[in-house]
């Protein structure tokens, strides 16, 4: 019904108009918004509007003990929470001089790659949905759920594993887990041709995504693009290989690149990374049983744990790109400052604003999903 005080608005005189795109919009990944200026359905200007998921993580962390923050950090990026935990732990380990046992490092790599698989399945599933190919989305989400089952078995939580703590991991790998993971990998690998048939070589998708949100390598570097989005412009760069952490320098994997720099190329990079992640996980499954020893180095009682004064900037390669933590300790029982550099803070704001210029309105969703922008990383 029409409210009593309803007044019709006057229409703008030209084809140009402004539109609120999101936050409540199916083409938006997460809770995020754009204000776009359109001429017909062509975007003249787009402005990101963030903060819908702002919780003040960095402030909250300053008020909590070092160890309490491990429950907080995975929330910063919901689809891919493990790199958050690992990166935060790495920073504390660097400041505190903790020696992470070898076994814990391998377990961490295993989780990171499982998380990457899950996040990529989710990401191109989402992208498929924006182009109307819901089957791919249904498949992607269902297959991701199988990885979550393994996460649940390993860490006790489906999505938020809260499994990495400074010094190592919280529990050892359950018996038989590696076998089950191995058969899951077999299954996922057998699924890849299905995904290719349905989505990646589907000419409906290829034609729809080619050229959408394209950027050159030069632009990507200028705009601070990282991760698969950067690799899609042809630059072979990966934090895992070029700034190695944990045991990535002992692993054999390739860094897939594409040259298009568009939505299609970004998805193809993700598709190729699935294969690489499976490859890494296979190596972990092979090596992990032979690496014995503790899963955590001794840490002090968490209630009375002063991490020595110092600062550390640690980076990991999350599924979205370069994730970094800057942690400052003044020797107290709580962090003095934690700064989270989420990869999406570039992708979802400046890059998206620029790529949207001249695009069609209906492509904004495609661009956003192809960048795999994760709004909580922006808002924090």
């Amino acid at each position, binding site marked *: 019904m029409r409210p009593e005080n309803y007044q019709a608005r006057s229409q703008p005189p030209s084809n140009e108009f402004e539109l609120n795109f999101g936050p409540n919009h199916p083409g938006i990944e997460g809770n995020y918004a754009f204000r776009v200026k359109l001429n017909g359905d062509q975007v003249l200007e787009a402005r990101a509007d963030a903060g819908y998921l702002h919780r003040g993580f960095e402030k909250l962390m300053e008020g909590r003990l070092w160890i309490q923050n491990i429950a907080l950090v995975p929330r910063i990026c919901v689809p891919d929470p493990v790199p958050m935990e690992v990166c935060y732990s790495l920073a504390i380990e660097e400041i505190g001089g903790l020696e992470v046992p070898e076994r814990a490092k391998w377990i961490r790599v295993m989780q990171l790659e499982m998380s990457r698989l899950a996040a990529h399945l989710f990401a191109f599933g989402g992208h498929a949905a924006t182009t109307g190919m819901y089957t791919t989305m249904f498949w992607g989400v269902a297959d991701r759920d199988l990885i979550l089952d393994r996460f649940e078995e390993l860490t006790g*939580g489906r999505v938020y594993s809260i499994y990495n703590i400074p010094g190592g991991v919280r529990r050892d790998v359950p018996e038989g887990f590696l076998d089950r993971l191995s058969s899951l990998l077999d299954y996922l690998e057998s699924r890849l041709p299905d995904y290719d048939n349905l989505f*990646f070589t589907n000419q409906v998708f290829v034609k729809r995504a080619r050229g959408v949100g394209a950027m050159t390598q030069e632009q990507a570097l200028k705009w601070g693009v990282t991760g698969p989005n950067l690799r899609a412009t042809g630059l072979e760069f990966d934090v895992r290989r070029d700034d190695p952490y944990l045991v990535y320098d002992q692993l054999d994997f390739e860094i897939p690149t594409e040259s298009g720099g568009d939505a299609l190329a970004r998805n193809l990079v993700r598709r190729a990374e699935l294969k690489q992640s499976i490859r890494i996980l296979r190596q972990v499954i092979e090596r992990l049983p032979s690496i014995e020893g503790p*899963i955590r180095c001794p840490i002090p009682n968490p209630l009375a744990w002063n991490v020595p004064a110092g600062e550390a900037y640690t980076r990991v390669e999350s599924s979205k790109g370069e994730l970094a933590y800057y942690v400052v300790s003044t020797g107290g029982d709580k962090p003095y400052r934690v700064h989270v550099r989420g990869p999406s803070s570039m992708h979802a704001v400046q890059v998206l604003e620029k790529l949207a210029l001249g695009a069609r309105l209906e492509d904004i969703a495609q661009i956003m999903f192809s960048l795999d922008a994760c709004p909580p990383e922006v808002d924090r």
Partner: protein
Amino acid sequence: MSDIPYKDKGSILRPFKSLQFFARPAVTQPLEPRPASDNYRGFHVNDWKKCIGCSTCQKVCDNAAITMVRVPGLPEDPVKGIRNERPAIDYGRCCWCGLCVDICPTGSISLTTEYVHTCREDELDSYFVLPDPNGIHGEHFPKGWDKTADADLVDLERQPMGELPGEERIDSFDEIVEGYTEQQAIVEASRCVQCGMCHDACPTHMHAPEYIRAIWEGDVEEAVRQMYRTNPFSHVCGRVCTHRCESACSIGRRGEPVAIRWLKRYAMDAVPDLRIREIAAEGKVDYISGRRIAIVGAGPAGLTAAYDLIRKGHKVTVFEALDKPGGMTRYGIPEYRLPYDRLDADVAVITSLGVQIQYNTRVGRDVTMDELRRDHDAVLIAIGLQLGRSTRIPGSDHPQVRRAVDLLRMITRGESFEVPERAVVIGGGNVAMDIARSLARLQKQQFGKVQITVCALEDFEHFLADPEEVTEAREEGIEILDSRGPKEVVIEDGRLTGLKTLGVISIFDEQGRFAPRYDQQDEQFHPGDMVIESIGQMSDVSLLGEELTERLEWNRGRLKVDEDGHSSEPWLWAAGDMVFGPDVVHAVADGHRVAASMERYLAELDSEKQDDGRTS
């Protein structure tokens, strides 16, 4: 690079390959909730039998989701470190991180595989749950996230304490325990979870969580300040306390308790004596009340009372029969456990506040109780237990049968006596260990070897002496026999040759009274030149004088006092070992209690005086 042939245009029919999926089984799960994984983090359960209400889970909870709730029906025992409180969880805050499980000192709390809870808006109270063994809906679900050895966040091992090895320490009275370094102390202090069980268990309720936290923060002066709130004998207690705090410590449930006593010792040693005096003087009133108090006996009880009373502005005089202060802490505890200079430091803090100690003044001989009463507003006797008890077995009146307390006093005072080449000690308490180990040192110095046998009535399961005392005594070459009851002292031609003992069948009768039964067949002979009786002490109350003794009320040979140490005479109090039995920290607690009672009495006197002044 890419292995995906997207560039070939392919057939537009390629997606139709997926039609084969019609023939495959659906991936859809049944509608019922699936069982969760083996270490799933679902709703909490708490084993109430294991839980001690220490509230550590509450402290580690990052979401402030845990409230401690008193459950009246549950056991509560501060000495054992059990509170009748249990954690209640607010599921409007909880994030199921499981840190409470990993840190729980007892391992009582765990998460289950139960994960479904829904409610309507008016039923939101169901989000506030007191977990018990039955789970949130009273249904049994298998345990999920539970404590494992490699996931424990509690540090179960204490920092090792450096000690002189047995061979090195045996020929001298040097202190055995080395004490913590700063680094060790901070690490040890960091093990504390601040549950406060120690505070509840301590007879004088020392603020152990506070001073441990202060030590961890590196602020030893604050730690000393916290100690002096309740204990002016912190040097002494830091070394020889019976540490009931550590028995109650929640970390000790599964591991080694926090070394609270050694931490106290560390903090006291780390602060210069002069600074300790300044800290102890903080809060002393800056006026003089005009009241005069006499205290008989410069032991821990008397001096603690003196410390409290002088801080209130009263004039306190302590009368001590011997020439040095400390009472049993000096004359009963050997120097290798408590160096005299540390004791002197504690006493010096108290005298620095203005307490006067008159040495070599035996009440009853040099000054009478009547004189004390005449010159003072109140009198406290805290004379301790200075007489050894005798076994009264045949031959126990032989001059080479000695009492442990007498010998210990002689050793401390440097009085010479003939050190036996072989000695037998009767008794199994800490005093027996003290005299055995002291004699062992003298034997080593004089003869180069140790030949001492300790015959204890109790078996090792129920031994009276601290386990570490027994271990150390053995390291020093002392033979300890359990379940041996003394039969007779063997004397040949007037010369003592040893002790005959019998095996013990039971010590107490069915009513629980002391009535040892011996196995007459199991007789042993322990050769020795001296037999030392160490089976208990009693008080010498002759100083009271006949008339006062008549007037006072007695209870089985002990002066009858109320719970504040107040005797039946309004001006007379008694405190310390003579009332409660031997223990330093009890004596300190008693000193505080009596001082408070005396303070109330003096305040009453003041108000009466004011009333008198007004009426007249």
